[in-house]
């Protein structure tokens, strides 16, 4: 193991979070893994320079070093504010983020050389911007870890968060297309050269709200039911919130023309509902509603057109991407096909970092970054990336399993599942598994909104995993909370159907 920068056995008095002797924090493991991840990022940068510029410049290590400093900063914050947090999450995400920066810098170098310009500086271009966004994202994540010392505090603001979430989702839908539309999907707020995707942030707010709502309502939702054909169905009046969210996601689908985001919101709600109630009937109802809605939207798109036409188009493009009719049409399958060709050209081993032609893939710095990288790192490289993502998601779910309070379980479970679902939606989209929708690839795509939102999500997971792995009585718990609420939580953990969360 790499030598730790900070001795792990230092006395517990350094931070507010007192460490309990005998419980492993595994912070040194995190540091070691982080160092390994940064070595890989530096090696990636060196390979890119070797094949693109023809030589490894003396400054090839600078982006990796800068990233190392940033991640080291987060590591230090975690060491003091969440010492028991899962040690694998940060290194895994840091590696993905670092490779993303490396690939974007590779695009900058490629663009500059093809225009016969000198090799761009480290802070220039989309690579440099991504570096800056990483800095801001990590600061946000650190602030979240510093401010939210106990994840249950978040539940106090659940309704505020819920409302914020819905507003964030709806803003692009009601704004004129000139401000909110990019590539046919109305998911943006664009002001001049600055643009954000508010929906990215809505995910975290909505998950927190759902978790809070469901913890309070779970008895009603899970107990009051009628049994039909061996499946417990909820009472009509309890269906209200589900139907509301279903309608919300269909509204997103129709007015923001984005199936992926709709699927994401709906999926995260259904899953938190299922986890909260343990009733499979919710899953069945949810899936029926969603796929029924999608099918009806498809039929409407075929017959009526209007706001559904875009959706029908996308389905056609997905089914027959190589049809010349779909390929040549504006807004047709050009992107998808070029992405597939890029992936196919990469084959098993890829052309090597820097040796491909990612600029043939439209939007390669955003939605199609996975396809662009696929040409250069091949099936093996992409599989490794998939494993990294899977690791992060499963670690998040594991925190959800281990954490002692229902709210924490639902938030961690919901966020992890949403992250996993988003990865599935975008990667499935660009590899032709499902219809393509405009989603960013978490931690890889260029752009601030996605990076910031996903790092906040990671910070929240770290906070909950700290509570999950830390000592039960005083670790996760009530230092921030006055009164006896904290003491009740562990006692109610086993068997109790009710659990009061005091806002």
């Amino acid at each position, binding site marked *: 193991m790499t030598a730790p920068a900070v001795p792990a056995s230092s006395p517990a008095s350094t931070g507010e979070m007192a460490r309990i002797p005998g419980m492993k924090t595994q912070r040194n493991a995190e540091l070691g893994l982080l160092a390994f991840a940064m070595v890989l990022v530096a090696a990636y940068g060196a390979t890119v320079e070797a094949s693109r510029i023809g030589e490894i410049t003396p400054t090839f290590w600078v982006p990796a070093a800068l990233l190392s400093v940033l991640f080291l900063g987060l590591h230090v914050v975690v060491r003091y504010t969440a010492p028991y947090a899962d040690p694998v999450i940060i290194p895994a995400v840091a590696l993905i983020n670092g490779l993303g920066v490396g690939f974007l810098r590779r695009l900058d170098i490629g663009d500059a050389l*093809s225009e*016969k310009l000198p090799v761009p500086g480290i802070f220039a271009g989309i690579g440099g911007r991504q570096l800056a966004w990483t800095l801001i994202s990590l600061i946000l994540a650190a602030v979240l870890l510093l401010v939210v010392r106990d994840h249950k505090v978040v539940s106090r603001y659940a309704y505020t968060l819920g409302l914020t979430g819905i507003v964030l989702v709806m803003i692009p839908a009601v704004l004129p297309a000139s401000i909110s539309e990019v590539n046919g999907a109305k998911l943006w707020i664009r002001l001049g050269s600055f643009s954000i995707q508010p929906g990215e942030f809505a995910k975290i707010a909505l998950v927190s709200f759902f978790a809070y709502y469901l913890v309070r309502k779970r008895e009603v939702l899970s107990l009051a039911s009628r049994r039909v054909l061996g499946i417990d169905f909820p009472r009509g009046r309890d269906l209200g919130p589900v139907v509301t969210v279903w309608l919300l996601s269909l509204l997103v689908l129709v007015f923001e023309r984005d199936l992926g985001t709709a699927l994401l919101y709906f999926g995260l709600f259904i*899953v938190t509902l*299922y*986890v*909260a109630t*343990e009733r499979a009937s919710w899953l069945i109802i949810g899936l029926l509603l969603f796929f029924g809605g999608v099918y009806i939207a498809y039929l409407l798109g075929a017959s009526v057109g209007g706001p559904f036409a875009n959706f029908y188009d996308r389905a056609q493009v997905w089914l027959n991407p*190589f049809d010349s009719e779909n*390929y040549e049409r504006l807004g047709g399958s050009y992107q998808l*096909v*070029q992405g*597939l*060709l890029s*992936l*196919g*050209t*990469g*084959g*098993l081993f890829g052309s090597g970092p820097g040796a491909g*032609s990612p600029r*043939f893939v439209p939007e390669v710095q955003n939605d199609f970054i996975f396809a662009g990288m*696929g040409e250069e790192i*091949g*099936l093996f490289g*992409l*599989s490794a990336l*998939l494993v990294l*993502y*899977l690791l992060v*998601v*499963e670690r998040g*779910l594991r925190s*959800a*399993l281990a954490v002692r309070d*229902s709210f924490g*379980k*639902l938030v961690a*479970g919901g966020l*992890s*599942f949403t992250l*996993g*679902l988003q*990865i*599935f939606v975008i*990667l*499935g989209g660009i*590899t*032709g*598994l499902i219809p393509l929708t405009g989603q960013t690839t978490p931690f890889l795509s260029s752009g601030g909104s996605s990076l910031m939102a996903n790092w906040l999500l990671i910070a929240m997971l770290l906070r909950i995993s700290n509570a999950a792995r830390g000592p039960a009585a005083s670790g996760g718990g009530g230092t921030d909370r006055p009164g006896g609420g904290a003491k009740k939580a562990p006692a109610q953990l086993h068997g109790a159907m009710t659990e009061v969360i005091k806002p």
Partner: protein
Amino acid sequence: MNAPLRRAGVVILVLFGLLFANLNWVQAYKADDYRTNDYNRRVVVAQYERPRGIIEAGGTGVATNKVTDDALKYLRVYPRKEVYAPVIGYRPVGLAATGIENAENDFLSGESDKLFADRVKDMFTGNNTGGGNVLLTINTKAQEKAWKELVNNERGVDKGAAVAIDPRTGAVQAMVSMPSFDPNPLVSHDEKAASAAYNKLNKDPDQPLLNRSTAETKPPGSVFKVIVSAAALQNGYKTDTEIEAGREYRESGAVIRNSEDEVCPGSQIDLKDALTTSCNTGFARLGVTLGRDKVLETAKAFGFEDDQLTVGSLEGGGLPVAMSDTGKIANPDGSVDKGALAQSSLGQRDVRMTPLQGALIAATVANGGDQKRPYLVQKLTSPDLRTIYTANPKTLRTPINGQVAADLKDMMVSVVENGTGRRARISGMEVGGKTGTAQNAEGADPHGWFIGFAFNDKGEAVSAACVMLENVPGGHASAEAARIAGLIMKAAAGQGGD
């Protein structure tokens, strides 16, 4: 709550498993498909990594390369622009290639199996040697002459075509089409400009992209009388056999008259004189007398109704040749339409022919009835100029025997020496041929045709040519075609190519 969470974990595992399986499908199973897909721009860039082979005619490059400093390293250059465009075509970055550039693409690009050894050598030396070179059969003097005479024709005709072939081998000596186009803008690396240039040409009502010598069929008019003569000679007629003629011939509603009253007014004329003076009534009667089947059979034997022919390499591929067609000559119930047969015997009605077919007919007569397959690719050489392939002339058909061919030659020489084809005469050479003036549309000027051949002083058939001019104003439409054909054959024979 842990059981559903575990299940959610399983769902994520399954979803990632699907992603992984699909990635395997895309990057392993379909990888080769995608790597070589037409939509894959990397294929295009890779093709420009090494210089494309040169297309040469008579020792000069007619399709060459220029080194550039952009992503596509070589720019294709066509120095002779319009003159060779119908033959060599062009090879654009994004659009489809045409002509020899298309037909011999594998060899020119270096991907052909024939250049396998060179590619293996490249792997060891690390060089990117170019593709193979293609040597055309085109005689540069004949080609330049044909183009110059066609565009500067004395009647101001703006559409037409000319083909000349060596009757002994089938090697194409000249092939021009008017109007033509400059292929250079089409191969520009600025794809938008190239696409705009293509669209402009494609929308031009004069169809400059159309190779009129191979891809367009027109009514051949009296040129078709050569076919009817061949049918007669094969069925017992001699050159001096008297056939019925006259001022006018009415058959099943069709009225046949001669082009001028002084042409064969008498009731009888011998076959040779009938062809020499291009006697319409005589040939209409002759066609009806011989019957539909014999006329159609002979036409087919000469190459009509063949939709498979290509002109390029004798190993296959090349410029597609449109099917020359006689039409059915039938009533709706399938019986012989004698009126149509009378008109068809004069190359009117539904008879259509490409200029290449015209040249083939003349070449067959000149080569004693042995029709050689026409070809444009004489030789393929490797990048280091080793010869990899040399054309070995092939017989395409033998529609007539030597005796019939000799009689036909005699008759066609008479046409040029005494008859309607006088303007094709070349001093010091024996020239034969047949003119054609084809009515095509109400009120439109007729097309002027000439097919012919030339023998040098050693008695060798050195060239056979066909010239077609569309809508020639000012009467005697075929005379100008005959003049141009004579000049092309003269140039092809190595005389007076200036």
